[in-house]
């Protein structure tokens, strides 16, 4: 339920480690001592924790290629909970030490184990573990709220706010909430007069014009091999983000997602905790059981009472029958140069209207490109400044035929070696697509403006939008080997 200590560590490019913040919760430590009895191991000084944590994360001694304590192959880090050995004595271990890391930050905490420690209890019996993870990711989002970029000053100023933030969300080691990101748009701090209790996750009440914005974003990922023995893969996941400016302590809003007759059913639906009830038919469809047993095609209703800040109402995955862009890519070594050809084909069901569309062709483990003789049937081709990447800018539209191609020769012989990627050796190479299509979803899913119901005194303005984005959209060279990326290939 509670955590004993919290550490925030930063790691710079030169792998220098520094402790930026630490906090011990003495009353929880007191409970740990009572619960642990003879097996109790106190939390050591910060520098000791730091050293052990770095070893366990494989980050210690970056200049040595093999360190027995760090690299022994029988020691497998397998769960989110690390074990730190304070001394060779068996009982001197700190467990379970949770860590999350992103960019330059590593956040770590030690949850209280409120169960007998021998035999070691499973994580699933310790609520403090999931609470600790939630706290850590909340703090991480707060500290990196400038958008994941390294912004040392912003980070330092937010670190300085931590003591007062922790007083609010975790005063005595028991996490109560996660930090609020940014200040909500309108927060009139008026306490409601009526009997209705104000939700603890709602910092104030909205005053003013009512408006509800619902944005549906679908992301498509793909791995295309152009190889009869390797099945091409693609998947889609979507998120529905809402911003609700509605008066009342606990106003009711319902958002309904609908599918067209030929749409793909939504699977693996996850909902925000403000959703008041979930129908079992919405939850049963999953992507993992193979059989397409569910006959539910919506509508998917999500009744909820909104918090003040924007939030992710729900997310889903979907199995669509075809990828939006089908590509093929071939490389051949000819004499001293590389012969290269690629085609991209936009599926007819996809609207030919992009916000942007680019194909990147990186070349690894080679020298810089010295001569590029490549023609494209459509769009424009650029070579980046480092001369190791071709950028094919397709722009807002594919050609009328919906099929475009690229062909030519490249020689590598520049004075500087290009970037290395151990995965892309020999002819193992890929095209990565970046595109965004407004007002489109592959699953067909949509939010009708009229289907958004707001039960409130004032009539609310409703805004809805949808878009499709690519992420990790790879087309592998079919003449080289390509890494496998999913277990669907086993089937």
């Amino acid at each position, binding site marked *: 339920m509670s955590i004993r200590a919290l550490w925030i560590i930063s790691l710079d490019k030169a792998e220098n480690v520094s402790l930026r913040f630490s906090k*011990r919760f003495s009353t929880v430590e007191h409970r740990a001592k009572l619960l642990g009895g003879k097996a109790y191991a106190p939390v050591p000084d910060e520098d000791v924790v730091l050293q052990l944590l770095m070893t366990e994360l494989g980050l210690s001694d970056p200049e040595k290629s093999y360190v027995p304590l760090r690299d022994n192959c029988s020691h497998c880090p397998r769960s989110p909970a690390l074990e730190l050995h304070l001394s060779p004595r*068996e009982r001197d271990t700190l467990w379970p030490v949770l860590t999350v890391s992103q960019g330059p930050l590593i956040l770590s905490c030690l949850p209280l184990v409120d169960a007998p420690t021998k035999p070691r209890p499973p994580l699933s019996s310790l609520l403090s573990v999931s609470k600790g993870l939630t706290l850590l990711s909340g703090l991480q989002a707060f500290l990196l709220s400038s958008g994941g970029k390294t912004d040392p000053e912003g980070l330092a100023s937010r670190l300085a706010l931590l003591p007062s933030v922790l007083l609010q969300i975790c005063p005595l080691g028991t996490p109560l909430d996660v930090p609020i990101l940014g200040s909500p748009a309108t927060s009139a701090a008026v306490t409601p007069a009526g009997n209705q209790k104000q939700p603890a996750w709602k910092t104030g009440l909205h005053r003013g014009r009512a408006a509800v914005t619902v944005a549906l974003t679908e992301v498509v990922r793909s791995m295309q091999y152009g190889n009869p023995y390797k099945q091409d893969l693609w998947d889609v996941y979507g998120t529905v983000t809402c911003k609700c400016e509605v008066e009342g302590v606990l106003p009711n809003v319902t958002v309904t997602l609908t599918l067209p007759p030929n749409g793909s059913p939504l699977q693996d639906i996850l909902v925000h905790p403000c959703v008041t009830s979930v129908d079992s038919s919405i939850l049963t469809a999953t992507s993992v059981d193979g059989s397409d047993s569910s006959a539910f095609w919506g509508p998917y209703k999500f009744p909820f009472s909104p918090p003040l800040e924007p939030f992710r109402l729900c997310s889903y995955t979907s199995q669509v029958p075809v990828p939006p862009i089908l590509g093929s890519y071939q490389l051949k070594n000819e004499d001293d140069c590389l012969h290269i050809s690629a085609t991209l084909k936009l599926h007819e069901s996809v609207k030919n209207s992009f916000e942007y569309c680019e194909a990147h062709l990186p070349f690894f483990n080679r020298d810089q490109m010295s001569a590029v003789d490549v023609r494209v049937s459509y769009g424009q081709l650029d070579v980046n400044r480092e001369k190791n990447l071709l950028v094919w800018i397709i722009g807002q539209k594919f050609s009328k035929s919906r099929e475009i191609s690229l062909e030519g020769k490249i020689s590598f012989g520049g004075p500087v070696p290009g970037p290395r990627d151990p995965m892309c050796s020999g002819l193992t190479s890929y095209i990565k697509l970046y595109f965004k299509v407004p007002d489109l979803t592959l699953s067909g899913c949509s939010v009708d403006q009229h289907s958004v119901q707001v039960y409130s005194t004032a009539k609310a303005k409703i805004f809805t939008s949808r878009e499709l984005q690519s992420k990790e959209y790879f087309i592998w060279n079919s003449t080289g080997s390509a890494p496998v990326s999913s277990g669907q290939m086993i089937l």
Partner: protein
Amino acid sequence: MTEQWAEKVLLFCRSPARFLSASGTTADAVHAELLRELRDDRAQDHVKVLLLAPYCEHPLVLCPSVSVAEDSALELMSVFSQCSPKVFPLRCHLLVAVTSVLVCTDCVRRRSSAVQDVLELLLVIVQDTSELHSDGSSRSLRATACDCLREMEACCPGLLSQHLELLGALRQRESSRLHQAYTELYSLVLRNSVLQLAQDTGSGPEQLKALLEGDVCVASEVTQDSDLMNGKDVSALSSLVLGPMGAVPTLQTGPECKELRSILSSLLEDSYLLTSLAQSSLLQKLIELVAMVPGVSPSIFRAQLLRLLGTTEVSLLHTTLLMKSAFTDSLFSAEDEEFLLKRLVVLSQHPLLSTAEKLFYLDCLLHFPENRPIGSGDRDEVLPVLFTPQLATALVPTVFNDRVTMLTRFNLLSMVYVEDGEDEEGKGLAYLYEHLVALLGIVGNGGNRDTVSTFFRASFLFLSHFGHIENFSRHLIKRLCELYLDHTHLAPQLINLANETQSKLPDSNFTVALLQGFQRTITKVSLTNLKSQELTCHLRVLSRVAEERDIPQRPTLLFLSAVVVASASSPLGNWRLGNSILAVCRCLLTHPDLDSMLVTLADVLQHMSSSYRDTDIQDHSRLYYTLLTNLSKEKLAGVLERGTATEGDQVKKRSLSCIVAESEGQASILTIHRTKKDVLKLVELNATEPRQLPEDVKDSCGSVDAIVDYRSQFDGPEFASEVTVRYQLVHSEENQPGSPFDRLFSIRLHLSLTDDHYEALRDVSVPCLLRETPPPVISLKLRPRQPYPTTLNASAVFTTQDGLTWYSNLPNIEVSFQQTFCPVPVPPAWGPLRRLDLFNALWSEICGGSEEMVESAESLFCCGLDRGALEELLQRHLKTFVLEDDGGGGDWHEVRAMVFLPPLSHLLLKVRREEDAVTFDIATDNWRLLPHVNSFLQDITSSDTR
């Protein structure tokens, strides 16, 4: 000013011990300084907030005893009452600090009087709804007070049982967002109260009803009944949902417990209004309550279940697992179970969840709380029965995973295919192997350190599950040999893999085959273009190969022979290379096939002894050559016995003949091993030697002379500058008889200082420590620079009978202030009268305010002690220092004591009994000692220690 404090507080919080020693202060002094600043009206509020951090994080350092804690709590409360009601953050921090101090020092469990005051105050705050004007973004005082009460209740279950009804009413009444704090507090108190009833065998429905309706008599009876210091208390701190209802105490109420049911329903209804984190805690407590009261059906949770199963929040979904584990099929049908399992699989790979969350769900899969668990008892990783290979395909590892996810999935899938009985034809297994080969390819293309260690871990996992499948292991060995040839720097990783697979799979021939593969690969290498680093790696691998009895060593020997010939004339032939060659030779000397290799090996050694470029290597080669040609095989093996045959901790005797070989044997003889437990400890000896005072020379020469005579002795720099503290060196309790540490030799104790108040200590040597003989006595000669209490870190290096050298830490040695007390070093001929003269002279010098005595100080200490107690105290603590006066101690008018603290300080005491109090007049020529004197007197006069 702020920055100064910020720096100080930060340093203190990071390591109080280091802070105290670095700044040369005591915790008492820091405590006093913090309090002074907190009471100072001129200090800014945000500085005061800063100053409270040490109380929140290290209350035990600042308040080591109950009495200090009580005083500090009251001090902080007075700061609280004096600060303006508008400064919420400071007042909130003050409440948190007071709570931390009282909880950690055990005051709450002892229900000390300060705790009663604080509890009253907190209960007043939580009932005070006049605080409506608080601005919504800053956390209100009321909520913090609720949190403090909850923490006290959490650390001391049952503390607030008497207030259950009040807290329930407050929760109901509160409609602002603060209701969450009240709900958390109320639900915890309810849980603990019902637990107390359940543990009390005589309780039934009436008691429960009375408790819920706030019948104070019953409620207080409940709290009185539970003995707060017994073992139950600790069990109440731990979670009750562990397995299928196993150890949960139950309260038999019959079907009628409407009141409780309606309370639970109301809490569940409101749970939606709490933040996810608070909601999960509430649900956990409700699960525990329902588990304890069979009269309430678990179906009460049904309405919430879908909402919780559909959630994206890890802590809320976690509560469904807790429910599953507590109620199994009374809440979850077989269909529900399958649904939950699929949900876990979905969550373990959902693209929108964080890596840590996904790993958590993966872990939950392997500890899935099944309705009908097979082989309960052991809680190790088990696959759920319903987890099919079909479901598992969603979780196959890929090269795009991060390292922990990849290894976790690799392990999971290996378990699935072992369970499924897959053989080499199996598609799943083929996938795993292909994945391993893909990883190997990345390593071969220059993957980074992380990829390398991940690949070797994955290989180990694969081999431990499927090492018996010939096809895969043969192919893997081939690939590993190729990998090694291209990347000889991977030798340590490959040897580690060989060692670990050998100890994991003692019956498998994989390791032997792998090493034989390496031997084949290496011995085919042409020597012409070999770099010296590569050659060193090859020899390192070959010496590991030579340890295997089942591998014929002929190819190794031929390779060695070629290397020796080549190195004799090339610059390669340095000491390091020679040593690597000898390491292989040494392993060959003990190999069972030695007879067949005798001639060639002798040639190699002879060649090295005559023409190797390094003389040291020549010498050692000659030694090996002589041993080889003069000893029988058995004797040779005896001499070179590597001693790696370990049985538990018992290690055979080692011979020093392997000293040149860079091998594990040498490493273990030359390295100092660390003991897993403390083996030794030092126990203080209290014996003080009786003093024989010489008769006084009749004519006292007056006090001035006495002081001059006395002082003249200090002209010699070494005079009386040492304190001797005597200890016994004994085996520690953790070290049970019968261990290899029963007989220890050449013990060298190293004592290091943790501050700079003392001169560095010399190491102490003890010849031996044997269980059967009396423990040796050690006199530590401390040379204080300032006679302050200190902590010494102690460690020992010693040898065990098997010839290994060990390093062990000893528990820290606490040198108390009192231990630095010495009798005043008067000339040996002085009798009691002269001593008295000296006392009087020093006293009047100190108290006379003479200008030379700038360091001196007087003080007074009073306490209540009866006569018997005082006498006992003097006898126990000050006997050596009391001056015998003419009065002969029969009359209890005044006792004078004179203490010398090396190197130059004196402490003089006049102890008088007056009416009902005892006063200690204190005079010292070193005012810095006063805080320590004060602690010392407090210590010996307080009831705790007497």
